[in-house]
């Protein structure tokens, strides 16, 4: 369960998040939708304790992410890139992450297998393609087998097979009872897998609810999105 309550954040003098509030519930895929620069990544970074909000709270199962011991067993995060130093092999990267949370080495091989990177585990992360980097990032998120997954634009850089795999994986994760929160600016992609939708625009949540509620009277989620956000007037 993810609860974000009245989160505001400034960068310099600009207000990038304005009292953002929403929830992501277990057993459901929550799509966090917004144009580029709307505040999706900032919100997720606040949720993970990477960035500091000016006010408001962001909790995972009732506590801030940073308050959890062995946080990788509580939530897994996929942000930009692989998250691995380019000189490290995929396996070496996963091993230090596992060590930091007291996870067994066998788990490293399990997640490598899960994302299909076993054959490339000895390659340096700097030599990885964009798709491989995303898979390594996902493997890192899954190390602690967490009940909550937070993913920032997870299908970016994936080929069609990878996108389908990710979609199935996230659906299965939610069906097993996990809380899945993913951000995207791709409406079509989100409409395919999201149960709930939160739309953010220029730092404010402009709509939230089930996919049907948010789509409302509009023919598609895309139409609803364009009607609700500034992206409807590109110039």
């Amino acid at each position: 369960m993810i609860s974000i309550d009245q989160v505001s954040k400034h960068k310099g003098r600009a207000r990038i998040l304005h009292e953002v509030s929403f929830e992501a519930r277990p057993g459901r895929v929550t799509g966090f939708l917004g144009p580029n620069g709307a505040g999706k990544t900032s919100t997720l970074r606040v949720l993970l304790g990477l960035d500091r909000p000016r006010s408001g709270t962001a909790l995972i199962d009732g506590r801030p992410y940073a308050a959890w011991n062995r946080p990788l067993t509580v939530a897994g995060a996929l942000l930009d890139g692989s998250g691995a130093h380019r000189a490290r092999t995929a396996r070496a990267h996963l091993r230090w992450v596992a060590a930091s949370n007291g996870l067994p080495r066998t788990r490293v091989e399990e997640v490598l297998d899960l994302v299909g990177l076993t054959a490339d585990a000895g390659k340096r992360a700097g030599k990885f393609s964009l798709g491989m980097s995303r898979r390594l990032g996902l493997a890192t998120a899954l190390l602690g087998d967490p009940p909550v997954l937070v993913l920032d634009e997870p299908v970016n850089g994936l080929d069609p097979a990878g996108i389908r795999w990710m979609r199935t994986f996230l659906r299965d994760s939610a069906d097993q009872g996990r809380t899945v929160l993913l951000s995207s600016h791709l409406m079509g992609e989100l409409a395919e897998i999201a149960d709930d939708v939160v739309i953010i625009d220029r730092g404010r949540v402009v709509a939230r609810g089930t996919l049907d509620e948010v789509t409302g009277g509009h023919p598609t989620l895309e139409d609803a999105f364009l009607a609700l956000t500034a992206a409807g007037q590109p110039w």
Partner: protein
Amino acid sequence: MSAVRAELRKLLGLPTAWVGLLLGLLAAPALVILNAGATRRAIADGIVSDVSDLGLQNLGIGVLGAMILGVVTVSSEYTATGEDSPGARQLTTTLTAVPRRTRLLAAKAAALSLVVAVQGTLTAIATLALTRQMHGTAVPSPEPVRVVAAVLYWTMIGLLAYAITLIARNGIITLTLLIVNSAVVSFSYLLTKVTPLAAYLPDIVGAHMFLRGIDVPVRITPVTAGVVMTAWVAGLLAVAGYLFHRRDA
């Protein structure tokens, strides 16, 4: 403990850390061999102010290795992970794995200190043994406490580099400054010609912990030197910790 183990694994898994490790281990013994002739002449001419310094003096160059290790511990967190995502850095993974920042910084400092202290000890032993081999009893072995002080100095320089890089968040600038100051032109030493207070800058005051015949305008005892050096390291670490807490990752 798990965080320290992870940080050790991270540090020792970096090729650049091994450059620092090997440079630190090999530079000082190599200098003993290269300087052997000059050292013999200096002793014969009686221009060495304290002969017992000679074995430890060559250790100075190896401190570069400790600096590199201190810098790399932090700079590796801030380098971009790839061309595809210029904003992505290992630090994101590090902070999601160990989100309590004080705990993270302490674990990093502990891992670094351990590696650097082992490196310093091995280097000191190798350097002193080699000095004994080359010069026999002409260079008396320093008391063990001075060797311990030298290793302590070595470790504190590593922590100093670590703190400065945390503040600057850029390894290249920090490393360039530290290397130029310690190996090419010592700005601190030049400053001592302007004001005697400059003798209390970390790189000069630290050397007083284990060397006796340093040419500076003030007399600093080894204990005073150790206290001042510790204050520098603690102060810079406190500033670094404060900034690390306040800044967005």
